[in-house]
């Protein structure tokens, strides 16, 4: 097993308190880029794929960040390690699962990663804590500019960056934010608000990737199309909508606490009790508990933990992270047991007021 150092790193991006982090968990910018006159990864043979990996590796080495980056060929590591990198936000689930010559280069402190031979030859992405799309876009734009000078990107004056799938043409970027909307969900207003978001051309997804089903209080909001729009426009659009959502969520939170304060306090304290004392915890139960606890911290009902710690916990309670912590494969209830142990340990000093 590898990457143990990522478990103990205490300066990763998600440990910082970002702007508006009471509602926005994280911001992400992602660009899709392809090399001109090459087959897209899914249509290329192993040799052609390897050439792309080598070429991109060489281009990445000119980046000032390359010194603290890791470059990994995904077929050289175990599937557990690939799942671990997925949970750590460094590669996508698709990238972890696909076959062939593919690689990732990452700097986990910056939340920066380069996915080579995923759906496109290169997908570069960066995460920021809280609502910080503008800074993330500037940061990734500079890196993209440096790579543009090294690699021959496929571009068309009318279609923009050429991508394996035509949905991603144009600026070929996604700006997304993960928001936590517990009050809107509680007050049954989330569906209505998110429908409004969809009407202004953004995509909303729930925890399981479903638009229609509200299965947790976490949602991801991102732009749909990037053709015909400048990158900065896209970023401003998502940022503006995110700010409106923050306002509605905070107003709703205030209102529901005025009306049903005792009931909500009870819920939060029960969640704390469960997370601290349960012996086995499913992922769903843990996420729901952390969602409630997060509201407790915002409402100053719970002390002893701050918001960035939640981001860390959301990642730590995932299966491959638990296996890495336990230093062995966890079968059946052992995973749920380890999850309960970690949460009990982490939340030891956390108290309800």
């Amino acid at each position, binding site marked *: 097993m590898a990457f143990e150092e990522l478990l103990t790193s205490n300066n990763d991006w998600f440990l910082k308190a970002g702007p508006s982090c009471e509602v926005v968990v994280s911001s992400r910018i992602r660009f899709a880029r392809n090399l001109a006159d090459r087959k897209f990864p899914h249509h290329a043979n192993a040799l052609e794929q390897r050439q792309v990996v080598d070429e991109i590796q060489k281009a990445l080495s000119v980046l000032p960040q390359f010194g603290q980056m890791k470059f990994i060929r995904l077929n050289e590591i175990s599937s557990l390690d690939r799942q671990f990198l997925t949970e750590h936000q460094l590669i996508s689930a698709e990238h972890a699962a696909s076959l062939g010559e593919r690689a990732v280069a990452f700097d986990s402190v910056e939340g920066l990663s380069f996915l080579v031979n995923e759906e496109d030859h290169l997908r570069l992405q960066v995460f920021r804590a809280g609502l910080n799309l503008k800074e993330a876009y500037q940061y990734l734009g500079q890196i993209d500019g440096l790579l543009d000078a090294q690699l021959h990107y496929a571009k068309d004056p009318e279609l923009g960056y050429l991508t394996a*799938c035509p949905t991603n043409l144009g600026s070929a970027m996604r700006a997304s934010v993960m928001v936590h909307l517990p009050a809107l969900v509680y007050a049954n207003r989330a569906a209505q608000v998110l429908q409004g978001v969809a009407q202004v051309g953004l995509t909303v997804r729930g925890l399981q990737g479903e638009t229609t089903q509200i299965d947790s209080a976490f949602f991801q909001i991102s732009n749909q199309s990037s053709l015909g729009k400048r990158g900065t426009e896209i970023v401003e659009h998502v940022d503006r909508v995110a700010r409106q959502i923050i306002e509605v969520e905070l107003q709703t939170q205030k209102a529901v606490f005025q009306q049903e304060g005792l009931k909500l306090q009870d819920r939060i304290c029960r969640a704390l009790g469960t997370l601290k004392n349960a012996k086995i915890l499913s992922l769903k139960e843990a996420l729901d508990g952390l969602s409630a606890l997060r509201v407790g911290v915002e409402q100053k009902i719970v002390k002893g933990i701050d918001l960035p710690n939640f981001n860390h916990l959301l990642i730590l309670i995932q299966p491959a992270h638990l296996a890495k912590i336990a230093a062995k494969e966890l079968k059946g209830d052992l995973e749920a047991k380890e999850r309960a142990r970690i949460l009990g340990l982490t939340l030891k000093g956390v108290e309800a007021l």
Partner: protein
Amino acid sequence: MLCQKCQQNPATVFFSQTVGNQTTQSHLCEACAKEETQAYGGMNPFNFNPFAAFSDFLNNFMAWDEGAITEVNSGRTKPATVDPQQQCPYCGYQLSFFRQNGRLGCTKCYEAFKTTLGPLVSSIHGNVKHVPEVEPPTSKPPVEERRSQKPEIKALREKITQAIQGENYEEAARLRDEVKKLENA
């Protein structure tokens, strides 16, 4: 005992999942158990696939497309052999593959399948053209503004605007590099 999920392979794994105070238990084969575990472990709030909805959209679009063709051909079905116009001369990719998986074979497929992709692109994105960022975002806008007051840079910027209006992107990129050089000097 057969696997309770696929009803095909022998059940070798006892799968138990507890959510809250509800426990579901099942006897599964190894493959199904693995699938279940992955579905269960795939609940990571950071992991979304923003591109997932596209295949549905494409199927709908292509269904419409096929419908239109059938109408023109008065109900006749299309021949099974590969029409050279349905294949990219550069990479050999067939348009029928794209209908199946929504992905193209290479960057030149956009040219090869222009007649099919043109309307598709418009229906996804609207009838629009790419708008480049022109200048890459910079972390020091105030310095940039001060520097751009130099007359020679100002003149170059005007030329860039003209080049872009004339859709002369290569020239615009060359001029942009010249501006950069002057600014860094």
